[in-house]
């Protein structure tokens, strides 16, 4: 097993792909936390804890859920909205949950508006601008999520979570696999259950993105 751990950055300009450092993907029913395979149940708790600790916990829905391609996509979108509403209910004063879409993968010139969207080619702009210190990607195609996760790990101190519909992401600090409506709802339930049990990082000045 690799000694490498996928931790919040800034790691450096071009962080290695976690896979190249020996991090492997979880099997069905499992997740990984910092590159270590863990039972999915533990991952729900850790993800919920990270959300409740963060100053600006943020959900980044991608095109696979932003557009109602089919009934399943529309249901996932509803579940994501539920997760966001739950987060808003469960955080304390001073914490600011956000829901920012990734509507497009193409680089935008001259630049994106980081207040309203995130782009996989320079996700750090949105992270920096909004001082996001914990985020979850849902409904982003894997290759674009990988790109974003690496850039975020390279240049910011944001904690990244991936709710992947395929086999998961080594480059996230925490990754679920086989994402479904149930799993998103279960994460929301865990956030609700842990409400009030986690101390937010509000007093530490070093929360949020660094550059």
């Amino acid at each position, binding site marked *: 097993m690799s000694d490498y751990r996928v931790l919040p950055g800034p790691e450096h300009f071009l962080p290695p792909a976690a896979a190249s450092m020996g991090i492997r993907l979880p099997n069905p029913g499992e997740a990984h936390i910092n590159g270590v395979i863990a039972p999915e149940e533990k991952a729900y708790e850790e993800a919920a804890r990270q959300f409740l600790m963060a100053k600006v916990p943020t959900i980044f829905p991608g095109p696979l859920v932003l557009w109602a391609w089919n009934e399943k996509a529309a249901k996932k*979108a509803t579940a994501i909205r539920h997760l966001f509403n739950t987060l808003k209910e469960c955080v304390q004063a001073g914490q600011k949950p956000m*829901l920012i879409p990734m*509507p497009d993968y*193409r680089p935008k*010139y001259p630049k994106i508006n980081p207040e309203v969207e995130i782009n996989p080619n320079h996700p750090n702009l949105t992270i920096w601008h909004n001082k996001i210190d914990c985020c979850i990607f849902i409904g982003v195609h894997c290759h674009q999520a990988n790109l974003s996760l690496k850039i975020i790990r390279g240049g910011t101190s944001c904690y990244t979570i991936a709710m992947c519909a395929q086999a998961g992401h080594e480059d996230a600090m925490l990754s679920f696999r086989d994402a479904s409506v149930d799993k998103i709802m279960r994460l929301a339930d865990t956030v609700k259950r842990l409400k009030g049990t986690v101390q937010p990082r509000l007093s530490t000045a070093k929360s949020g993105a660094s550059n």
Partner: protein
Amino acid sequence: MSKERIQISEALYDIMPSDYQDLVKSATYGKEDRGWKDIGTSKELIEQHSLCAGCPESMAFRYILASLPNPEDTVMVGSTGCTSLVFPMVAVHNIHSLFGNQNAIASGLKRALSVRFPDRVKDVVVLAGDGATVDIGLDMTLQAWFRQEKFTTICFDNELYANTGGQESGLMQKGFVAKMAPVGKLFDKVRLPEIARESGCHYVVNCTVSKPSLVEKVIRNAVHIAREIGPTYLQLYTPCILEIGKNSMEGLQEMRDSEKPTERFAYKEYVSEPAKQLLTELAAKDKERKAAAKQLAGQASA
């Protein structure tokens, strides 16, 4: 495909940037008689772009995107140049190819689309500058025409390599001195429209983009002919105002000056016999459709 396929998830509608909401609400996908007159009243398929103020290429881009007969089922293939800066802002599928490769990419793409979607009309339109079309990509351009590939090639002819500071291109006019071509062009502008005709293109037009209705007409003709018969080629003069020493507001006049009867961009059109027949049929169908629509409107108001 139509707007029904591109609905935003209701639960996340409010967080979508307004550009995307507007595209779903008021863009002209699926509208049969879409055209340049929709500009200003419908959401354009081009968002903000980073081309220079007053750039004729940006005008051309707007007219072309407004005129494509089937934008939801069109794939555009671009090449390196100023257009590369616009494609990320365009709400039509597009591929950025290697410099000069655009017609080779489009050939494969068109064939693949025909196999993958045998029952759907899929248009492929190449949009590249004169460097990509005539110099670096001439081989790919000509070979696609020789093979009778069924797609449209549009060349934005600004008569030099504008994006890289003004080097000489094959389509530059003889004697022209550019910033990075101080000796002046020693030979004539390559006569690509004539070469296109001899290479098997069924519809060839050489013009400027000063008249939007003309651009609309030639784009629609070119796409329809390419869809049914074979390759088509449009050479559109889109002067680079920076490289020819003009101001932002002088691009339109430059095009008007260059399209006079004795000038190099005087309107020239070649239509092959099968293409002529197709255009006649299309015109008749269009007339019928308009008459039916008029009758229907009359009944509704009665």
